[in-house]
C-alpha cells in the first residue's frame, strides 16, 4: 500500500468523485467526501515522512519507466504542498456540511461534493506529477471543477464570475500548453527531470525564451499575479463560502507551486533569472500587486470581497520572495504560501459562519457582531492579525523570513513595500474590527453564535495559525528543506 501511496493520494478523490455524485442523500455524499479528505491527509503525512527519510520518491505509472512513461515524483516541496492541500481540505470539509446545506439547493449537493473531490484530485495531481503535460491535464481537471463550484453561488453574479474565470483560466492554461509544446519541440521530452537535463543545450534559442514567457504568463493568469488577477475578486466573493475558503487556501498556491517548479527545477535559476529579466519583472509586479490590491481592499464594503483583494496582495508577497532569486527568498515564498493558506482558510471559514447566520457578509451586517458572535469574531480577529503580520501568528513568521531574505539581498524596495502593505492590511482588518466591536447594532444584541459544527473547524484552523506562529521549527524547517532541494546549497 505505501509503495503506491503517491498514486493513491490522487486516485482516491478522483474515483470517489463519481460515487459522491451518485449518492442519494447529501449527507452520504458529504460523509464520503470527508472520509476521503481524511484518508488523503493520512497519505500526505505518510508521504512526507517517507520523503524526509528516503529523499525524492519516484513512481512509474503502469510500470513504464520515465521519460517514456508518466513519472510521479515527490520531493520535499511537493510533500509540503500536498500536506497543505490535504490538511486544509480535511479541516474545511467537516465545516462544509452545514454551510453548504444552507447555501445550496438540496438536489445540487451530491454534485457539489463530487466537484469538490475532483478539485482536490486535480490539485493533488498537479503536485504529484513529474510530467509537464500531465500538469496541464490536472490543471484543467481542477479548473473545470472550480468553474462549476463557483457557479453554484447563490447570487446570480456567481454565474458571470464563473464565466469570466472560465475564459481567463482557459486562456491561461492554453498559454501554458503553448509553452510546454515549444519546450517539447526543442527537447523532445515532457518529463520534468529530463527537460531540466536537456534544456541547457538549447537554452540560447528564441524558442526557449518564448516558452518561458508563455509558461510564466499562463501560470500568472492561474495564480492571479497582478495585473492578471481580474477573475479573482468576483469569483471569491460570489462562490459558496466553503468553495471560497478552499480556493483561497489552495488553488492559487498550487499554480504558484507550478511556477516555482518551472523556474527552479526545469528552467534553472541561472537561465530564468539570467537570460530573461524574470526577477525584475516578478519584483515589479509583486510590489504593484501588494500595494494596489491592498489599497483596493481597504475600500471594499463586502468583507468577502475585501479578503479576496487581500489574497491578490498576499500572492504579491510570495512572488516577491521568488523575485529575490535567492535560496532564502525562495524559502520565505514557500513558507508564505503555506502560511497564507492557513490564514485565509481560517478567515473565510469565520466569514462563512457569518454568512450561515445572516446570508451575507456586508460590512453593515457585521455591526455589533463582536458581542453577538464572539467566537466567530475572535477567530476573524486572530486570522486578521495573522494577515497583518503580528508576532505569535504565522503571518509574522513568513513576513519576518521575507524581510530577512530582502535585507540579505539588499532589496530595500521590498522592505519598504512590505512595511507599507502591512499598514494597509492593518487598515482593512481594522475596518472590520471597528464595525464588529465598536459599533452597536440597535436591532440585535442577542447572542447568535454559529453552531459547534461550524465553530470547531474554524477554530482548528485558527489554532493552527497560532501554534505554527509560536512553534516555527517545523514549518520553517520544511520550507527551508524544500528550498534547499530546489536551489541547491549554494544559493
Amino acid at each position: 500500500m505505501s509503495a503506491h501511496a503517491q498514486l493513491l493520494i490522487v486516485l482516491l478523490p478522483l474515483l470517489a468523485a463519481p460515487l459522491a455524485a451518485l449518492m442519494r442523500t447529501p449527507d452520504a455524499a458529504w460523509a464520503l467526501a470527508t472520509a476521503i479528505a481524511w484518508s488523503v491527509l493520512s497519505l500526505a503525512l505518510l508521504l512526507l515522512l517517507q520523503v524526509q527519510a528516503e529523499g525524492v520518491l519516484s513512481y512509474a505509472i503502469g510500470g513504464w519507466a520515465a521519460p517514456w512513461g508518466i513519472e510521479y515524483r515527490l520531493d520535499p516541496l511537493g510533500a509540503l504542498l500536498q500536506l497543505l492541500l490535504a490538511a486544509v481540505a480535511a479541516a474545511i470539509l467537516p465545516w462544509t456540511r452545514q454551510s453548504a446545506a444552507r447555501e445550496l439547493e438540496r438536489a445540487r449537493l451530491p454534485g457539489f461534493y463530487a466537484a469538490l473531490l475532483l478539485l482536490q484530485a486535480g490539485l493533488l495531481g498537479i503536485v504529484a506529477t513529474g510530467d509537464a503535460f500531465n500538469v496541464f491535464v490536472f490543471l484543467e481537471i481542477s479548473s473545470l471543477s472550480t468553474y462549476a463550484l463557483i457557479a453554484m453561488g447563490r447570487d446570480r453574479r456567481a454565474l458571470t464570475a464563473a464565466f469570466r474565470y472560465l475564459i481567463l483560466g482557459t486562456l491561461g492554461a492554453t498559454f501554458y500548453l503553448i509553452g510546454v509544446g515549444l519546450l517539447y519541440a526543442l527537447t523532445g521530452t515532457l518529463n520534468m527531470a529530463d527537460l531540466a537535463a536537456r534544456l541547457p543545450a538549447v537554452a540560447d534559442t528564441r524558442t526557449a525564451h518564448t516558452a518561458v514567457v508563455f509558461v510564466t504568463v499562463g501560470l500568472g493568469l492561474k495564480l492571479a499575479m497582478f495585473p492578471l488577477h481580474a477573475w479573482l475578486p468576483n469569483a471569491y466573493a460570489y462562490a459558496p463560502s466553503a468553495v471560497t475558503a478552499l480556493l483561497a487556501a489552495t488553488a492559487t498556491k498550487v499554480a504558484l507551486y507550478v511556477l516555482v517548479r518551472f523556474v527552479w527545477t526545469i528552467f534553472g535559476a541561472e537561465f530564468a533569472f539570467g537570460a530573461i529579466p524574470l526577477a525584475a519583472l516578478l519584483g515589479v509586479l509583486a510590489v504593484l500587486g501588494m500595494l494596489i490590491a491592498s489599497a483596493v481592499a481597504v475600500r471594499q464594503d463586502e468583507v468577502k470581497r475585501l479578503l479576496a483583494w487581500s489574497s491578490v496582495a498576499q500572492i504579491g508577497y510570495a512572488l516577491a520572495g521568488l523575485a529575490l532569486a535567492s535560496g532564502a527568498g525562495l524559502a520565505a515564498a514557500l513558507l508564505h504560501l503555506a502560511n497564507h493558506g492557513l490564514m485565509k482558510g481560517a478567515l473565510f471559514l469565520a466569514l462563512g459562519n457569518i454568512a450561515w447566520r445572516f446570508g451575507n457578509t456586508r460590512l453593515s451586517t457585521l455591526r455589533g457582531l463582536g458581542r453577538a458572535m464572539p467566537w466567530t469574531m475572535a477567530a476573524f480577529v486572530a486570522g486578521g492579525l495573522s494577515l497583518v503580520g503580528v508576532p505569535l501568528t504565522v503571518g509574522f513568521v513568513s513576513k519576518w523570513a521575507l524581510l530577512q531574505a530582502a535585507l540579505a539581498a539588499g532589496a530595500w524596495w521590498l522592505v519598504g513595500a512590505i512595511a507599507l502593505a502591512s499598514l494597509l492590511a492593518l487598515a482593512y482588518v481594522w475596518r472590520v474590527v471597528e464595525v464588529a466591536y465598536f459599533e452597536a447594532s440597535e436591532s440585535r444584541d442577542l447572542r447568535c453564535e454559529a453552531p459547534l459544527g461550524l465553530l470547531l473547524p474554524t477554530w482548528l484552523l485558527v489554532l493552527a495559525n497560532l501554534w505554527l506562529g509560536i512553534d516555527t521549527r517545523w514549518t520553517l524547517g520544511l520550507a527551508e528543506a524544500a528550498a534547499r532541494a530546489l536551489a541547491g546549497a549554494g544559493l
Partner: protein
Amino acid sequence: MSSLGLYNYWIVIALMMVGLYAVIARGHLVKKLIGLTLFQTAVFFLYISMGFVHGGAAPILSEGVAVYSNPLPHVLILTAIVVGVATTALGLALVVRIREAYGSVDEDELERMDSDA
C-alpha cells in the same frame, strides 16, 4: 527552408490571433466561446505540426518503412481536445444559466445590470 515553407505555423499564428481577438473584443458570450475554441484549436495545430517528420510515414509499424512521424503530439492533443470539449460544454451551460438569470448574454448589458443591482 523558406519561412513560407512553414506555412502550418503561419496558419497557427493567424488562427490564434483571430481567436484571441474574438475573446477580447466580442461582447456576446457565445462568440467569446467561439473565439476561445479557435484559440485552442490553433494550439492543437501547433502540436500536430510539430509531430510531422519530413518524409515520415504514418506511425504504424510496417515493412520497409524507416522514418515515421512522431505520434506522441497526436496523443497529447487527443487529451487536449477532450479538455477543450469539456470547457466549451461547461461554458455553454453557464451561458444558458446566465441567460435564465439575467435575460441577456451581452457582456456590457450584464455589467450594467450588475452595477445597478
